[in-house]
């Protein structure tokens, strides 16, 4: 079947029955099918649930739905019962019988599967009452954990493709650019460039052939938000790419995705297939003259390929080395045609902005950073997972309230944001409202949104060494300062952690850091020294304790940092 007009899309939204999506008499058991929960046997849980349902002959009353990640991976596997809004955590396959017999058939909530608040042991039934979710605002993640990502009709029922329908039947390209610009949306891939501006520049380029590329490379070692969006809600990205394509005048989109994300690739493929079947991709979309299709390109394991010019080289089948900018991809990109490169999370916001309007979006966030940001919260924190908060939320709220504080009663030491390009933030800056500029102001950056919490057991020199090893390995080797500079920096850090370095080495390290920063071609080299500079700034004494002429008898790893900082949780 083809959906060949906006009216038909609306009609389907009203009338189509998908797994009784909106039927309140049918209970739905949502089971997390994200990577974390799958690793904890959620697949088997689904199998067992279906088995019990069959045995109890209650398949009319209840449906099991595999969804994307709920974000609360630490407590996985997650199960949610709708329309009761009951949220179960750490569910194992053998709980299947209890859930069906007790909850579904008897209507009794299974107390032992409820989330228990660590501080006061209070059990919480509903997702919206849990501290982990309370301060969150899920826009980019709106459908993750809510719909079945492999079922296009569920997406349509949830307003899916309505924004695309609206723009291609009712809006001019300039109107859309105006809406996106006024919304204040900035790129979530790290740079924070205004998305509306980027679309405008690409649209203005002469020529008929243009491309839109979704950057799903996500090389930051500790970030998984883009993957969760693609796995949990692939259609939102596809829809946004079509909107972007229409706006800039492109008929073709490319999703450049890491080969290391097999499940995201497979869900994207399923989604693309379904969208083509319904005519939401392809020729004459929704009966208009707009043609658009999307192709997948797999990366092959190189962090630098996330940089947009390197990504374009890689799309062309070459080594993923960055080019000089300008010309920017918007002017001269894929096969030298104007190309707009956008991040997954950036795109996931687009349909919402179209549907709800620019002033709705710009009312969320801070003055210069609008909307929300998804963070991958990890490290020594109680609630590891994906969290989406309005810009302007403070780091303390994220770490203490949403994250539930530090694991095992240890003390907070620092939080590393921005991945290999970023730096550490200490207790004194925890009340900084998060946005692009504020994070730069405290010596770190937003980056893609990895947030690694460190405690008193972590040695900051080791952390800096970890990131340097990463950038050294991932340097494409094209420019000498980056290729050799990061290697020398790494060697110096090794020397320091082995307690063989002197003050002269510290000076050399600092000089090298500025040299690499100032003379590298692309963002990788320009930001590679940040973790070193930032740890030096805030944890100078940890370096000093390892310097040979400071008297300290223990070896690497054994010594404990002195400057613990306590935060109240």
């Amino acid at each position, binding site marked *: 079947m083809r959906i060949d007009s906006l009216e038909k899309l609306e009609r389907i939204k009203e009338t189509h029955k998908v797994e009784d999506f909106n039927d309140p008499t049918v209970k739905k058991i949502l089971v997390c099918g994200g990577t*974390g929960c799958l690793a904890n046997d959620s697949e088997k849980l689904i199998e067992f649930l279906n088995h019990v349902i069959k045995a109890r002959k209650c398949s009319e009353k209840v449906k099991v739905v595999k969804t994307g990640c709920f974000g609360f991976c630490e407590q996985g596997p997650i199960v949610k019962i709708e329309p009761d809004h009951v949220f179960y955590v750490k569910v194992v396959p053998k709980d299947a019988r209890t859930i069906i017999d007790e909850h579904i058939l008897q209507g009794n909530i299974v107390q032992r599967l409820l989330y228990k608040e660590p501080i006061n042991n209070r059990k919480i039934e509903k997702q919206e009452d849990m501290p982990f979710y309370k301060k969150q605002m899920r826009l980019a993640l709106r459908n993750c954990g809510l719909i079945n990502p492999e079922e296009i009709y569920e997406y349509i029922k949830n307003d899916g493709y309505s924004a695309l329908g609206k723009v291609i039947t009712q809006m001019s390209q300039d109107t859309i650019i105006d809406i996106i610009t006024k919304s204040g949306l900035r790129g979530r891939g790290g740079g924070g460039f205004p998305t509306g501006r980027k679309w405008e520049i690409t649209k203005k380029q002469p020529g008929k052939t243009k491309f839109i590329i979704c950057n799903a490379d996500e090389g930051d070692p*500790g970030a*998984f938000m883009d993957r969760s969006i693609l796995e949990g809600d692939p259609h939102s990205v596809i829809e946004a790419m079509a909107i972007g394509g229409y706006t800039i005048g492109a008929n073709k989109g490319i999703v450049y995705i890491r080969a290391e994300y097999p499940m995201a690739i497979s869900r994207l493929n399923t989604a693309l297939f379904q969208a083509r079947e319904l005519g939401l991709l392809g020729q004459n979309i929704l009966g208009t003259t707009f043609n658009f299709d999307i192709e997948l390109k797999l990366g*092959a*394991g190189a962090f630098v390929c996330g940089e947009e010019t390197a990504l374009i080289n890689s799309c062309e*089948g070459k*080594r993923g080395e960055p080019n000089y900018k300008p010309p920017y991809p918007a002017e001269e990109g894929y096969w030298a045609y104007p190309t707009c490169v956008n991040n997954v999370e950036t795109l996931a916001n687009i349909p919402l902005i179209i549907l709800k309007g620019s002033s709705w979006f710009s009312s969320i966030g801070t003055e210069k950073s609008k909307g929300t940001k998804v963070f991958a919260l990890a490290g020594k924190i109680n609630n590891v997972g994906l969290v989406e908060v309005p810009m302007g939320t403070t780091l303390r709220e994220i770490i203490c309230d949403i994250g539930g504080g530090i694991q095992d009663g240890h003390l907070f030491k620092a939080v590393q944001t921005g991945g290999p390009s970023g730096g550490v933030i200490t207790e004194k800056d925890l009340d900084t409202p998060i946005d692009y500029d504020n994070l730069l102001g405290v010596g770190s950056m937003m980056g893609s949104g990895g947030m690694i919490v460190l405690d008193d057991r972590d040695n900051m020199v080791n952390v800096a060494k970890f990131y340097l090893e990463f950038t050294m390995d991932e340097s494409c080797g094209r420019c000498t300062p980056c290729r050799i500079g990061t290697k020398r920096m790494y060697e110096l850090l090794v020397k320091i952690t082995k307690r063989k370095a002197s003050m002269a080495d510290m000076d050399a390290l600092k000089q090298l850091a500025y040299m690499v920063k100032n003379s590298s071609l692309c963002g990788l080299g320009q930001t590679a020294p940040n973790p070193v500079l930032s740890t030096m700034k805030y944890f100078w004494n940890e370096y000093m304790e390892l310097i040979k002429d400071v008297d300290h008898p223990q070896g690497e790893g054994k010594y404990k940092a002195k400057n613990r900082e306590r935060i109240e949780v």
Partner: protein
Amino acid sequence: MTSTREISAIKSDHDLPEESFKELEKYIDSIKTTKGALIEILHKAQEIFGYLPRDVQLFVARKLGIPGAEVFGVVSFYSYFTMKPMGKHTISVCMGTACFVRGSDRIIKKMKDTLGIESNEITEDGLFSLKDVRCVGACGLAPVILVDDKVYGRVKEEDIEEIINNYREK
């Protein structure tokens, strides 16, 4: 198009199955344009052969009419491509940041000791190869290892022996 005779000439020198070359050739012939498709083709080749030895690279180069050096340049650039054969099972230890701060360096060390190999090596019996990888996206379960596609979370040093033994031929 490369003739069957040429394929068998390549094969006669080495132990690579002729069938596999045919399969790869069929794949290359099936794609609309080979312009820009080198990485896709190499992904397919690695899927078929398990790795990308010199002869496979040369075969691809000849098929696409590009210099062998260009193919090598691409293969060597990307860490996903390997020029060495892999073991029957690939053990990947996540060395992403979340796993690192939760002790993955100890896990990989223990793994190396237990298997008696370094990263990117293969055990003598050909059963295992070891890789370190960056964030597999299950940071909530850090530290994480993968055996083939199966994810093991919250791995402790003392679990490693058992995990490996699960895959040893009984």
